[in-house]
């Protein structure tokens, strides 16, 4: 039974999403733009891989309407997002907040880059101590050229 339900939910979510309906849209373009922006930062809890802006799940639709209601009510973007997080948890955020359990996520790329740079720099230094003979000076180069051009034997 559970599998059948999951399948139906998956099919609904897999259908290409045509989401925001004209009937939902606010008349004030600035508020509507804010609504779209907030929606694009909230994950659909049913489809889980789409934003509520994209998802055509019923609950996504209701969330979009709720967001617009709250905007009309005068809430700020932050307050609306906070409300969603208070109900559903961090999971519903697409941009992970900067907090204790995401420090590694946000600093990770930098750490990898620095670690790589350190390793590379260390090896470059090690290999340069193995450097071969010093490069030819101009005089040495000229002397070789003279002997090569004057001397036809190998």
């Amino acid at each position, binding site marked *: 039974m559970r599998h059948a339900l999951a399948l139906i939910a998956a099919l609904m979510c897999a259908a290409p999403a045509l989401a925001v309906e004209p009937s939902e849209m606010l008349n004030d373009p600035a508020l509507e733009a804010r609504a779209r922006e907030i929606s694009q930062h909230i*994950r659909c809890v049913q489809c889980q891989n789409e934003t509520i802006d994209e998802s055509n799940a019923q609950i996504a639709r209701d969330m979009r309407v709720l967001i617009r209601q709250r905007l009309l009510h005068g809430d700020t973007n932050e307050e609306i997002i906070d409300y969603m997080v208070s109900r559903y948890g961090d999971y519903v955020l697409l941009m992970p907040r900067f907090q204790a359990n995401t420090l590694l996520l946000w600093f990770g790329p930098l750490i990898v880059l620095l670690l790589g740079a350190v390793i590379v720099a260390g090896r470059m230094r090690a290999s340069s101590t193995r450097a071969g003979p010093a490069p030819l000076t101009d005089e040495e180069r000229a002397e070789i050229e003279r002997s090569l051009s004057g001397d036809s034997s190998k």
Partner: protein
Amino acid sequence: MFIELGHFALALAMAVAFVQSTVPLIGAAKNNAAWMAVSRPAAVAQFALVLFAFASLVHSFVVSDFSVVGVYQNSHTQQPLIYKISGVWGNHEGSLVLWVSILGLFGTGVAVFGRNLPPALRARTLSVQGMISFGFIAFILFTSNPFLRLSPVPAEGAGLNPILQDPGMAIHPPMLYTGYVGFSMAFSFAIAALIEGRVDAAWARWVRPWTLLAWMFLTFGIGLGSWWAYYTLGWGGWWFWDPVENASFIPWLTGTALLHSAIVVEKREALKSWTILLAIVTFSLSLLGTFLVRSGVLTSVHAFASDPTRGVFILGLLAVAIGGAFTLYAIRAPHLDGGGVFAPISREGGLLINNLLLTTASATVLLGTLYPLITEVLTGERISVGPPYFNGVFFPLMIPLVALMGVGPLLAWKRGDLMGALSRLKIAFGAVLLAIAVTLLLSGVSLSHIGGAAGIGMAIWLGTSALLEWTERVKPRRAGAWTRTKNLPRSAHGLTLAHFGVAVLIAGITVDTVWKDERIQAMSAGDTVEMAGYTFTFEGVETVPGPNYDAERATILLSKNGRDIAVMTPERRSYVHSPQTTTFTNIYTTYYSDIQLALGERQPDGRYVTRFYYQPFVPLLWYGILLMVLGGVVSLTDRRHRIGAPRRAQNMGAAMPAPAE
């Protein structure tokens, strides 16, 4: 009957793979020529058997033999033939048979074209390839068998998911797998080199063409997937940082690094352990991607139906293959001899930084993709990482990379002159400043427009410097330019094409992201909407039947300045065997921009929801990718990559490396 034969052939292939894995390896260790020579016929035989199995599966789909489980689940008598065939790999089991077929194909390629390979290297390489095949054939036979029969035989099949019934989706998997799986060759070569304890220019010369081939197909496959998402999903997106998309992008990034790193090994015998590492890492990431998509540990709308038993099996496979490879690397790589020395500012130095940046980018995407899983397993907390994160950390990494791509090709080997190279790029600097100024002037200054100008600047920088480098070599204005062009190694042309392609790609991404627009509304006959200078006139909706679906088709007139341009017909289809409706958008393209029209639901008052998207410069994404692939093709035809290898190696005897050019 054919299916049973195919099933049997696959089991036989597993046995042959076992022989292929063990005998040549022992032969190489004991320097036994006869045992080493087993590798070639074994690889070919294994491939032939797998191919036979694959053919039997295709046959059962084509004739709609619903007694075969896979056919029942993915096909339907009314399905068009092309989708009956693509249904073979539109599911977990069948796609694995395709996987293993391509694995065998690459092995056979080395067996047939690698006549001039040193026998020990060839034996070890094919042996590793055989091990991988063995593991995956076992996986198929024991957990994901498409050859099983159903009884009683159903009269009709369940049909392929309608989303997959599309030409782009049909060839997307074969292209992608040829890429993914193709990197197995570099992996096998790398393991063989580690076992042998030697990496040299000749090794790099063998590895490069196979890596190039795999890279080209992976690039094309990813592009195809992106293009399909764009014209199917109906709202103008083409990349979502979805786990399955990331699973193919992550190895692409390291694969690109590998491609470039191998050049340094071939030219200067430097960056050896980097290149070996990248060869191992890239295929390991392919395997990891396979695991993520099929085991159920990650949820994604893309993912195949998941099953933890399969997950455990693949995890075991991965542990052996990747764990073994990295263990071998940790033990043997430190003993690889150093190779050419170079100054930090040099072509090698540039490629080293290239390696570093691409590897970091790959690790970043991997981190973001796996982070929710890791957090949940370790702490039980559920967080999510979405596009805002990826966009935020990935693009900053690309900026130094693109800057480097412009100047790197102008640096000399061993010791480069940075200031000299930059001064040769004066025109590029000028072009960048001009482009940024023009962009901001024309579109106005705002935060997003500054970002857009920066992106355009990057694209102009890369494109101009690629062209400048090419003209420096070819000197078009001096006599003999045509001769110089012909004599220039093909890989140099390939470089220019591919890098220019990246520039085009960046331009497309930037302009579409910053300057796209959309209109969403409910319309009835006669209504009009304006966007981007175009007028959209809604004329009506009619019902149209198709081979296995019914469609609602809208007619919308597209006009500009009063002049009719096109009649567009977006539609929504209901398939006979599925409860969902699928949208088919209609795209009007000027070949430098797109207008995408989608039909939505019918409202209670009889009006229809319509969505119009203006996507400027999106075609440049596809042109850029095609240019990159073309660059790969041209490079592949370089005579130095001719797989019948350097003649000097033949004369000097197989064990000696060829002198670097």
